[in-house]
């Protein structure tokens, strides 16, 4: 549960402000018949303003369930989730979600209407919604596709529309549930770089669920590592001062994350041999 700062120094000013999202002793799971299956056993961590927080863990550890709970789709059976000081109950646009499925766009609306529609729902005028939508489509380099229907887009473009739609709502925190998981490797890399640029330009706070260590390293300011179900937070890793992929500390960090996730998997398989920590 400790924060481990790897690298030269921990950044200080401005970045330790009040938590935007507070996950406190949360327990989550689902019913299989009459049996309750715990996915997240006990999770505690904060997401701070303007950071990209990655949640990573093995399959079935409840990382997506955790994101859905913050979004308000599932209620925790224990602990509490607070967003901007409010205990969240119902889903709302302040926690806009980008899902993994390409089919998250409304097929009967054009690209620009898909982005503008949620703004209309939230009380914006037709004209102002369209203006904002166009702005965010430009931001995601989709201005040229504004009048197309979703079925005329590639998977990568669909995910960019979904990101534009979520960002246009100016959420307190942008929740992303493995949004690039179903893309091919080249498109995924391109969208990761694009997401980094967009987040820098908009200063949005992001919580991003993935099972890819590479993705966590490319995108994350910090990483919450969850163990096997019933999971708890194994470690919160700080990546803010990490160098590029060519540096030694980068590969060290990759090794560290691999070890964290792999060791735990070995535990689950009841094997005695430990793979150890870094180096």
């Amino acid at each position: 549960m400790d924060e481990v700062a790897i690298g030269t120094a921990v950044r200080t000013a401005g970045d330790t402000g009040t938590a935007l999202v507070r996950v406190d002793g949360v327990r989550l799971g689902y019913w299989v018949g009459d049996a309750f299956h715990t996915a997240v056993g006990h999770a505690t961590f904060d997401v701070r303003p303007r950071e990209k927080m990655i949640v990573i863990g093995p399959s079935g550890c409840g990382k997506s369930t955790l994101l859905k709970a913050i979004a308000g789709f599932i209620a925790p059976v224990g602990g509490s989730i607070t967003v901007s000081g409010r205990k969240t109950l119902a889903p709302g646009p302040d926690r806009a979600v980008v899902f993994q499925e390409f089919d998250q766009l409304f097929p009967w609306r054009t690209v620009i209407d898909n982005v503008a529609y949620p703004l209309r729902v939230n009380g914006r005028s037709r004209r102002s919604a369209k203006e904002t939508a166009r702005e965010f489509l430009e931001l995601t380099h989709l201005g040229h596709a504004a009048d197309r229907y979703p079925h005329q887009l590639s998977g990568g473009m669909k995910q960019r529309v979904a990101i534009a739609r979520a960002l246009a709502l100016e959420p307190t925190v942008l929740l992303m549930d493995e949004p690039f998981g179903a893309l091919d490797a080249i498109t995924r890399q391109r969208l990761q770089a694009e997401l980094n640029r967009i987040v820098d330009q908009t200063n949005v706070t992001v919580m991003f669920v993935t099972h890819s260590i590479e993705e966590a390293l490319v995108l994350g300011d910090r990483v919450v590592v969850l163990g096997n179900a019933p999971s708890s937070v194994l470690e919160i890793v700080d990546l803010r001062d990490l160098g590029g992929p060519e540096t030694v500390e980068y590969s060290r960090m990759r090794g560290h994350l691999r070890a964290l996730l792999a060791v735990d998997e070995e535990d689950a398989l009841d094997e005695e041999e430990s793979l150890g920590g870094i180096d």
Partner: protein
Amino acid sequence: MAASTEALATPSKPRVLGWGRLPAVLRYSVVAAVLVVFWHLYAVHKGPLVMATPRQAVEAVWDGWKDGSLAHSTWTTLRLLFEGIGIGIAIAALLVAFATLSKFGADVLAFLTAVLNPLPGVAVLPLAMLIFGLNETAILFVLANATIWPLAIAVSTGFKTTNQTLVSVGRNVGLRRVRIITDVLAPAALPYAVTGLKTAWAFGWRTIIAAELVFGVAGAKGGLGNYINDARLNLLPPKMFAALLMIAGLGVLFETLFNLLERHTVVRWGMKTS
């Protein structure tokens, strides 16, 4: 260089031989012509008190349209059909919304569709005549009953098979129960709704013509079914065929309209392949 030019040369298209080579218009014209010839021969064979020749039938359409009798009957039937289907759509929409919002509603809908959908529409006509009398209300009742159930089944299937991610997106952007239905489930179920509407339309057509035939016997006036029955009583086969041609023509027309509707909505949105 030579190799690449060769690769780009237009390959020879496989040739279709014989009948399939002819343009579609010509093929269908030939089929129609053959049928008309057989019709004509059979009509001549049976005599003018039983069968009309194609020529007499077309002339009867023309005459009937000119003196207004056929147009009036057609209009009566279509008006009743639109009203009946309109009532059917409204009730089906309410039932499905009710079924979506509550478990009790879902049970009511499941029970009603299970019992009433297999029932042929005209079967309730005698009951409707007893309740409402020999009037349009009885026909509207029968029509609504014939269209509600296929529509309700189609739309509720569409609701149930809606991609849950879309529903989640709807809730995420701030939609609540009723608007989830109107803004997410209803458009998502449109491919099913259009199919249901086609079925409802077909059921409605069959039902209203049958009902008008019965009403014709019972003495009330109006409608194409009634027109057919009158023609039979007066031994006027051409008028009978005129009404049949109208019914078939309208069937083709509305089928075309439904296909246009699909092309401009669900096909355009990639929710259904044409």
